[in-house]
């Protein structure tokens, strides 16, 4: 069956095998069942399923969107419920979850690839499983055994979905302002009252039960983030035998009308709308809600980084096909009296290669980060675990910030390649642009990613974590320089590395934190370009002995020689200081 999305399994396999070290991760005791052959089968079958079953619903999801009904239920677009049922039957949500509760226990990086495939197929649809997986991870790490046994098995199969309830009307990026209340009851449970907004899949018709994880304050909790606790609040109260009981007092009072991901219902949830309050159970320590949320933050941010990659890929595939079908104008290769295919125009080729090479660069950066998380959790040597934890910490804001910015830019180029038709909704290129915009905002805006990079990550071990990272890039460039076809790319990377060092040392030397924050966003972009550039360069070096050599060389050279030099131009912005932003 032909589809309008083809899982890019060749590049994914290359990254898994040669760049992010799946062959080492597979050797960790917990992953011995996840051998390479099974991973191959899994990705090709999951890819086929998402392409054939989930991808065709992408357009109808955008055109119709989810609808809030008068009885406060939410209906997803036609076809979503059946596709979700098929997703549950296939069991794709279980792959990377814990084996104790029915999960497949596969590496995080394998789960990350599945996320790319489902997000490319249909970002709105993917939000339901993605949020569920975040909730599963939080419960796995912090819930009591009784709560785990009650909720995890059916969340892991996907029969029940999960949500994350953080944001309130006056508490967005700043969670210290959370006001939702949790009143302790004599039976040990809590009554939750308050309003949460921006709750993805907070109400929908695809599962029988929805498990909300809610941040709230108990009556005598301290102020700020240290007084926030996490509660599990099911849509239906649980009977002791595990069956669903009466409706809990949590109501979806409306859903938002959005720029994109219209089939993903973004809900306003009212807890206690019917007067009593919603019954919830404490997850983890009292006042430990923020810590609990942060254990899944790296994973969730990588999940959003993947969305930038995934929509870039989808937009690229569409633009690529169009450029090979549409004839317009003349090119030097055109015969007399005939029109050229778009792909024959050098400027169109530049646009396509800008898309393709950055998609590959994002894929490498993200999967290396995911692989580092697997190493940090399961490597046998403590030093190996710690080193990879540092890499994951440093790379996560780069992956989230740069990949979502770049995913949006790529979707914009996708519109451009379609010319006037790109601006017409019927073409479908515009949907990718609108859908991709949210990834730059949620799970920590990209500004917050940049602040995280300069505020928390740059200073790790007095700056040595970043310095050592740049040192590894230098060694890799030296290895690549000896490959004749890569000498120009290596030279370009060396200049960019010099810029990264200059910017890093300038930031580390500042005493006024505002000067550092003023340069945060250009610094994130600079570091991402240099980090991803090295991964592209390394790919080309490794591939030079393989059949895929020429393809890797083509994109690596374009990325390193034509896009990475932009890193040097960012130094003045990084080092301008806060005074350069004065005024109103």
């Amino acid at each position: 069956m032909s589809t309008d999305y083809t899982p890019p399994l060749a590049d994914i396999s290359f990254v898994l095998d040669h760049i992010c070290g799946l062959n080492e991760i597979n050797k960790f005791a917990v992953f011995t069942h996840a051998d390479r052959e099974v991973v191959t089968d899994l990705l090709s079958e999951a890819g086929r399923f998402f392409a054939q079953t989930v991808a065709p619903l992408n357009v109808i999801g955008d055109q119709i969107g989810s609808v809030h009904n008068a009885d406060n239920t939410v209906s997803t677009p036609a076809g979503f419920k059946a596709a979700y049922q098929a997703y549950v039957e296939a069991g794709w949500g279980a792959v990377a979850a814990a084996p104790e509760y029915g999960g497949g226990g596969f590496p995080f990086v394998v789960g990350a690839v599945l996320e790319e495939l489902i997000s490319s197929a249909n970002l709105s649809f993917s939000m339901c499983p993605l949020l569920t997986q975040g909730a599963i991870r939080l419960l796995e790490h912090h819930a009591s055994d009784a709560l785990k046994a009650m909720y995890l098995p059916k969340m892991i199969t996907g029969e029940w979905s999960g949500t994350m309830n953080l944001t309130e009307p006056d508490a967005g990026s700043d969670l210290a302002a959370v006001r939702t209340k949790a009143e302790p009851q004599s039976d040990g449970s809590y009554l939750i009252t308050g309003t949460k907004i921006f709750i993805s899949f907070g109400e929908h018709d695809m599962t029988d039960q929805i498990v909300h994880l809610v941040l709230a304050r108990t009556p005598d909790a301290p102020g700020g983030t240290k007084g926030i606790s996490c509660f599990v609040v099911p849509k239906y109260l649980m009977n002791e035998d595990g069956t669903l009981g009466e409706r809990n007092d949590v109501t979806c009072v409306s859903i938002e009308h959005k720029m994109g991901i219209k089939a993903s219902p973004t809900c306003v949830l009212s807890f206690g709308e019917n007067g009593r309050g919603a019954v919830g159970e404490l997850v983890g320590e009292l006042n430990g809600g923020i810590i609990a949320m942060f254990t899944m933050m790296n994973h969730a941010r990588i999940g959003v980084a993947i969305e930038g990659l995934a929509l870039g890929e989808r937009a690229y595939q569409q633009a690529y096909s169009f450029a090979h079908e549409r004839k317009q104008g003349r090119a030097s290769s055109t015969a007399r009296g005939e029109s050229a295919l778009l792909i024959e125009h050098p400027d169109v080729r530049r646009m396509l290669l800008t898309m393709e090479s950055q998609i590959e660069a994002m894929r490498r950066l993200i999967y290396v980060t995911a692989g580092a998380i697997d190493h940090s959790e399961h490597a046998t040597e403590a030093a190996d675990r710690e080193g990879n934890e540092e890499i994951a910490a440093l790379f996560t804001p780069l992956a989230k910030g740069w990949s979502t910015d770049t995913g949006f830019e790529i979707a914009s180029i996708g519109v451009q390649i379609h010319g006037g038709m790109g601006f017409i909704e019927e073409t479908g290129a515009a949907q990718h642009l609108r859908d991709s915009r949210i990834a730059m905002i949620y799970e920590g805006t990209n500004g917050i990613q940049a602040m995280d990079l300069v505020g928390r990550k740059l200073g790790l071990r007095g700056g040595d974590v970043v310095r050592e990272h740049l040192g590894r890039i230098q060694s890799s460039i030296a290895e690549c320089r000896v490959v004749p076809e890569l000498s120009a790319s290596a030279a370009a990377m060396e200049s960019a590395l010099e810029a990264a060092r200059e910017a890093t040392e300038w930031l580390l030397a500042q005493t006024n934190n505002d000067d550092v924050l003023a340069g945060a966003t250009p610094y994130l972009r600079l570091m991402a370009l240099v980090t991803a550039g090295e991964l592209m360069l390394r790919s080309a070096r490794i591939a030079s002995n393989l059949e895929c050599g020429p393809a890797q060389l083509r994109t690596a050279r374009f990325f390193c020689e034509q896009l990475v030099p932009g890193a040097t131009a960012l130094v003045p912005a990084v080092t301008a200081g806060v005074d350069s932003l004065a005024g109103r």
Partner: protein
Amino acid sequence: MHVVVCVKQIPDPAVPGALNADHTLKREGKPILDESDSYGVEMALQLVDAAGGGEVTLISMAANEETAGLRTALAMGAAKAVLVSDPACAGSDALGTAKALAKAVERAGSVDLVLTATESSDGYTGTVPAQMAELLGWPALTFAKKVDIADGTVTIQRQTEAGYDTVQASLPALVSVTAGVVEPRYPSFKGIMAAKNKPVDICTAADLGLDGQLGWAGARQTITNVENAPARQAGEKFEDDGTGFEKVVSFLENLKVI
């Protein structure tokens, strides 16, 4: 009930194919399950379910021990596979293939029904099912668009140009099923994990008593030449001067489609 399904592992049609100097298809990359065989696998699983028990066995032939395509069908729910795997298989013609597969059916044990596709997507001879049935001494019911089994009898609807014939035979029998006859299930995550441990009985031509009868050695046909399919002719344009519909109708009548 024990149903055997003949499945072929073919080069991925999404990858541009290439020919060897002897005009045979290059089969170097990771093969996939021929999509036209996925219908037989699904049909077999449904028939076994409907019968209240039993199992599905796959049989296949390859010049190497490649099992990637078989694993897809095992992940769908087949219980085990017999793979005739021998470098001597390379170059087999349709009859050689039928001999190997018929022997593999015998090796699979007591079998009630063999299902095949109507033809493979890479070879397209369409003759193997009938040849197999002849070698097994079983009735061949071909081009089935519906299959029912009851009381030791198989009844099919045989697709014809005009509609369908109802054809019946006693078991054991061989049935070829058309594409689209059922909706093949997707292999599930659990199915893929289970497939890892399902037995694949790999046997050689000698194991089947077919030494010298398979591959080029046993083939009674040779490929003398391969030519590209003729390029598609330019279409015919009708200007609509008010009688366009008549031209369209007469064009379609010439094609005998109306």
